């Protein structure tokens, strides 16, 4: 099968094309459908077009380049094997692939990261995380709504949601990091999510 172009030039190309696919995912539908038929060329193209976006997701959660590479590799092997189960009526191609990558990243993260005990200050210290930073993220125009809705959440709720999504943190880890009881974190997340849904739907 043909390998993607060298990573240096691929990175720029990928970025451009991946962005344009935010609005038009029909080429990805086609590539996924052909991947389901074991078309390795289509799969190679799919990788070239989406891997930079998906790698960013893995890196953000795992915060470790090698593990993120392992994650991306396993996720794409899963995409190759499960392309036939992709349901276009249910989700957009990139949403589905992001789910595959995130689930793999969360699994890998938790295999290696023991559950945090909220009462252990030393462990707690290791779980400082700035995953809720949004200064380096850029929402595409059609995604501004989520950004607006996040803006309507209380600070603590928004932080929890972002730390969980970007950092892969569990309730106890969030409680440790934010130095509040687990119950409080659960409430913030529950209310935050409810409010997001109301705002978005």
């Amino acid at each position, binding site marked *: *099968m043909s*390998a*993607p172009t*060298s*990573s240096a030039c*691929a*990175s720029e190309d990928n*970025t451009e094309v*991946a962005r344009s696919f935010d609005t038009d995912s029909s080429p990805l539908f086609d590539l996924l459908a052909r991947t389901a038929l*074991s078309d*390795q060329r289509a*799969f*190679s193209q799919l*990788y070239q077009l989406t*891997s*930079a*976006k998906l*790698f*960013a*997701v893995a*890196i*953000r959660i795992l915060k470790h380049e090698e593990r993120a*590479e392992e994650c*991306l*590799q396993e996720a794409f*092997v899963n995409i*190759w*094997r499960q392309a036939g189960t992709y349901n276009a009526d*249910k*989700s*957009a191609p*990139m*949403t589905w692939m*992001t*789910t595959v990558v*995130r689930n793999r990243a*969360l699994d890998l993260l*938790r295999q290696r990261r023991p559950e945090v005990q909220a009462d252990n200050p030393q462990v707690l210290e290791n779980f400082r995380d700035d995953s809720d930073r*949004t200064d380096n*993220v*850029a*929402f*595409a125009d059609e*995604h501004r709504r*989520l*950004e607006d809705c996040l803006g309507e959440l209380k600070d603590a709720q928004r932080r929890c*949601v*972002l730390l*969980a*999504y970007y950092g*892969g*943190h*569990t*309730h106890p880890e*969030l409680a440790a990091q934010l130095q509040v009881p687990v119950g409080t974190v659960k409430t913030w*997340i*529950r209310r935050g*999510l*409810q409010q997001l*849904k109301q705002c978005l739907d």
Partner: protein
Amino acid sequence: MRPRDQQLRDHLAAEYVLGTLHGRARRRFERWLEDDRELDAAVAAWAARLFPLAQALPPVAPSARVWGAISTRIGAVQTPATARTRWWDNIGFWRSLAATAASLVVVLAVLLALPGREQGPAEGHMVMVANRQAEPLWVVSASGQQNRFKVKTLRPAGMAPEKVCVLWLIWPDGYAAPLGELPERIGSIDVRMPKGLARDPMRAQVAVSVESAGAPVTAPSRELVFKGPWVSL
């Protein structure tokens, strides 16, 4: 007991997508998803709602080695039609045996220690048989002497005691000649084509089948677990 309350179900779907549902609760939820289409739809809706967060991250190009590893792992035998599906789905224990992609060949050339001084029409050709984890099990290489081949066992395949792997040459017309059993023990052995067979081995594909130990081997009795052409180094 899976919850019936709509609000609770939707909330679990949200926490599943967010990632805060973890450990046993996550695994249990995934089992529910298998046969609960409504819950599955709730998960898809939440994945779509939160997807812009992932999409907003600046892209990071992964190293070229990631694609190398992926193409190796998926680069199974390119037999026609639906062979790939049958391969993964029907072979049971032998699900683990897969063929290689050409990209691994270069890496493996180092392991091969091919005889450099010997001459012969077939020299420099090899086939590698790997398992599903892309771990190479055997390298079959042309010895430089016509009709003789070297089999290098790189790691034990872990066969059940009553089963063996048999190496074959299969020509385009379907004629199959056994070269012998593939060893479990790490090391090298020599195998040869059956005496008196006047066929060019380089025109054949190399194949592996699983046979009962001790049974006479005249034709591959089961579905092939591996089939691939010679690769020229």
